[in-house]
């Protein structure tokens, strides 16, 4: 048989196609996905109301609009539910089937979730982008370097998010309550990533947050969009993303390997 990477590459188009077909198969999931990323919109409602009379900690109403719309866009592009999917597949026995195929599940899942992105966000994303460009324009960065780095930054954010979700999914080999852990994780994520509110507003918590991977899953690209940063800050943001991407990737694969070994020992 060919080597693993080459096989993966050859399988990619089919995986992507099936990822699309799966997403499209259940029309209501569109709607649900769109609606589940409403947290930034709710926060937007709250904070624009707060900042209506006067800016709140240097954030004007427009600043908040820009911030939360940017959060929404980044979240649409990087969010995934692979932890839930894996937990379910372990429970239902579908995971055992997956392990019999000569394709590392990491790639299989990654491909299907990546492929689903355009279809999941087909409605919300254009709307959000248009809104951001029109109403929040004043609060956006104009630095060409930052804008150019947006794509790699979002890609890295996606990778970190995916790796962490994959790692949590791998916990399903060890524990039965992975859903609870995934929910707990989402709570921490919304706090430390800036999803709940800009990290600046969190005072001492912000200091802790800056050392967690969460920040690099969401806040990093958002900062690139909404702030004007100097060279140093940009390097630290992207460098941090690269470092965390590598770290979470390794951790995810190690955890996966341990999980599969346990799975095989226990008998599935």
């Amino acid at each position, binding site marked *: 048989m060919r080597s693993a990477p080459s096989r993966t590459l050859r399988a990619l188009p089919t995986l992507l*196609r099936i990822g699309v*077909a799966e997403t499209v*198969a259940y*029309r209501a999931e569109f709607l649900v996905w769109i609606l589940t990323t409403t947290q930034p919109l709710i926060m937007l409602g709250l904070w624009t109301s707060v900042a209506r009379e006067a800016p709140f900690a240097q954030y004007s109403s427009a600043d908040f609009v820009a911030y939360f719309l940017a959060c929404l866009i980044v979240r649409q592009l990087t969010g995934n539910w692979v932890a839930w999917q894996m937990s379910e597949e372990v429970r239902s026995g579908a995971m055992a089937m997956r392990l019999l195929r000569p394709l590392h599940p990491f790639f299989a899942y990654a491909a299907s979730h990546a492929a689903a992105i355009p279809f999941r966000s087909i409605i919300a994303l254009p709307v959000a982008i248009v809104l951001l460009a029109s109403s929040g324009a004043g609060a956006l960065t104009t630095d060409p370097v930052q804008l150019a780095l947006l794509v790699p930054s979002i890609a890295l954010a996606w990778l970190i998010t995916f790796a962490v979700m994959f790692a949590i999914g791998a916990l399903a080999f060890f524990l039965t309550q992975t859903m609870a852990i995934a929910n707990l994780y989402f709570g921490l994520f919304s706090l430390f990533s800036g999803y709940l509110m800009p990290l600046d507003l969190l005072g001492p918590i912000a200091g802790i947050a800056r050392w967690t991977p969460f920040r690099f899953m969401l806040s990093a690209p958002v900062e690139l969009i909404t702030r004007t940063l100097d060279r140093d800050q940009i390097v630290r943001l992207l460098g941090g993303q690269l470092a965390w991407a590598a770290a979470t990737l390794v951790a995810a694969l190690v955890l996966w390997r341990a999980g599969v070994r346990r799975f095989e020992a226990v008998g599935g």
Partner: protein
Amino acid sequence: MIRARDLTKHFKVHKRPPGIVSALRSVVRRRYDVVKAVDGVSFTIERGERVGFLGPNGAGKTTTLKVLSGLLHPTSGEVVVEGCVPYRRQASFLGQITLVMGQKSQLIWDLPPAETYAMNRAVFDVPRVQYDQTLAELTELLELAPLLDKPTRQLSLGERMKCELAAALLHRPTTLFLDEPTIGLDVAMQVAIRDFVRSYNQRHEATVLLTSHYMDDVVALCPRIIVIDQGKLIHDGDLRQLIKTMDPDKRVSFTLTQPIGDDELARLGTVLARDGQRITLRVGERDVAGVIARVLGALKAADLAIEDPPLEDILRVMFGKRRGDRAAEAS
């Protein structure tokens, strides 16, 4: 009494050809095929009868049972069970019937069957005394004692099926709809369940409608069978009668003790199987006596057996012929 008249049930099935373009198109507009699961079926079943429904996969047997139990609205036609219209699902109706689906479970997965039984007792509002009696009877007949307090997920398939049956009968229904109750079970368990069902039918004069892929279930349990193929009823009557009508020839088997020429064998009947010295012949009903005389007399053969053709073969021919006819029509 169960009565169905011109029962018809159509389903709309979403049609989706492969490929990315059709996948996208299906988001906006869906194409449907109409499947005629049940197509103008009529029959009457009296109280206390045991009837088997036979047919190939997808013939409409399960759909018919679901309509009879009220889970599905018929597209057209009339159906009455014990004086009630099933799909109204009135409490009095539901208290008289039960549906057991071999492929689906009503037992709570993480808890012992005893909890499901308690739930059913509350739901069906069974008086304490009657409940205790019924449970004792079922426990004895099905040998449930060691199983009642183990979580369902720890039981084997056969044990689970027994517990499922008990759960379905706690409210002492008078009409039993059994959809593939013995699927996946070993032979001993199949026999046990068959015996139990027969015993329940005799004790409580309960009507039993059974669908099964295992011919032995039907042959052992049901004097009357209804054959359904492609939604249409193609036979309704005595099992023996069906066999006689479709294939009146008998199967005669014996073991040779001395060699015999091929042409002499051919004169006795058509050779169906030859396994070393063991021969199985197909012999016309009228010729059976003559063949037996020759086989035992001149040939001095041993281990003579005379049997009806197996039901499987008959049905296979029946359905195969219909499929062939349909293919011929289509082309």
